């Protein structure tokens, strides 16, 4: 279509320039599998990191007695 650039030729070949091979090649399959695995692992890490923070803070709060009810604390409105 355009003389200045071999557009049609490159259109056909552009997928070959993907980092590790074209569509449905071994390289793309491996990259897809790696990305998917990292995505799934990130969920486990989200849980573990948050658990550590929350458990630590809850432990600190319980240890300091900050949330112990004072004997003379006013009862909540019922």
């Amino acid at each position, binding site marked *: *279509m355009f003389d200045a650039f071999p557009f049609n030729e*490159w259109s056909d070949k552009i997928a070959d320039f993907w980092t590790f091979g074209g569509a*449905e090649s071994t390289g793309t*399959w491996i990259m897809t599998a790696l990305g998917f695995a990292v995505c799934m692992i*990130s969920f486990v890490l989200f849980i573990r990191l*948050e658990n550590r923070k*929350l458990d630590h803070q809850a432990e600190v709060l319980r240890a300091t007695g900050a949330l112990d009810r004072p004997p003379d604390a006013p009862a909540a*409105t*019922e």
Partner: protein
Amino acid sequence: MLSTFVEVLAASIEEDLKSLTDKVMLDSNVLLEQFYFYTVVVMWLIHVGFMAYEAGAARRKNLMSTAMKNILTIAVVTPTFYYFGWYIYGCFQPGFPTIGPDSLDGHAGPKEFPGFCGQTAPWAAEMGPNLQNHLNLVFFLAFLLFSWTTGSIMSGALIERVRLSAYLILTAVLGSVVWIMDAAWGWSSGGWLVTRFGFHDAIASLVVHGVAGAFTLGVLLNLGPRIGKYDRQGRARSFRGHNTHLTLMGLMLIFTGFYGFYAACLFITSTTFPGWLNIYGSPTTLGAIAMVITIGFAGGFTGGWFASKGDPFWTLSGGLAGVISVSAGADVYHPSLAYLLSISGAFLAVWSGTWIEKKLRLDDAVGAVAVHGVCGFYGVLLVGIFAGGYPTGLNNVESSLGGQLMGMMAFLPLAFLPGYLISLALKKMNLLRVPPEVELEGLDLAEFGQDFFPEFERVPETIVEPDGQEVEAAPVLLDSYWQTTHGRETTKAGS
């Protein structure tokens, strides 16, 4: 001599015409590519809005943990939608892919869209740099933004006590499996609900909002209310959000983004059809849906104002409810009809929101189940009543009350059950809710180790009792904490 000249001329004209046709096709595709690109840009505002909306509704001690949920929604829904969500949309439209030689071509629509299923796999040529395909990736991105929206709808309801990691798991399931499955079934030209029953939900009342609301309902049943939300008699207290202005600004940003959302529900390819088409391939105009959304906001604000007797939060939420109520039929409704229906939708949202909070005793912090869930289902029902007989999709199957009810019956369990069951599993593993001590102190200190308004002095937190009296929150929350950790729970959802 003359005949040779004519042949040469004809060949030349034919070549010119082919070149011209190629250029027009390219321009048409690039125009649609740009259109979708900018709808994606505008739809980002929805997420800016949801973040501001929910952060403003949270108490100061939970500000960043609330906002971070909205930000990390993007981090988890984007890759999961890329790895399997888009494939579900491409391949599950007839229900489930057939087994056999054509198993990958699961599209049930006409021959105009062959092989869409195969283009949606993450390793497909259409999912990377491809000079021959201008549309697949921007189309993917528009749907991805819808997916973020479903997660954000749920996000607000769960604030101030859900674990961030639990929310991320739930939002990935909602955004990359549940909603996109229902979109495949009822929001595509080849979906079985569309091709068999004429299901009509043009701008996604149910497939986005209603489904997200039903999923959220299932999660809320397991999550339980925030500490102190209900007194010992089960009467609802109100928490004071730390910045109502931020909440209202967030809602206005969501409304702005909705114009991108609406526009992204249409497409135009002038080389194959002389005008705009909705997601089903039925003709409409951009002006028609923009008019309905605008007058839907007007009706929704009006209804929300009167139903809540002038409450600012419910007035703006009423606008959202109004628009959601008329979205399903936005391509066919007359503006006057949309105005009236959106007013009714806002009334319904306020009433159902109050009922959910006070009678059902579900602590939905932003009224998401009422505004998105109830009004989403209501919107689809309205199409059956007011637009029955309108031909839907490329097969021109007439929309009907029965077809709309069929969609509602299919989507309610599809959305509710995964939300309920997955949150139940997380609850059993003690991964759903933060420890009560952390909830009482505030999530920000545990998650981030800091207060996010360091230059402002802390003032005692207040809470509004069921009788409307505003009191200091600490003794009330401490009492509820003791009820939760040392006695029976203050109240149980649905009790």
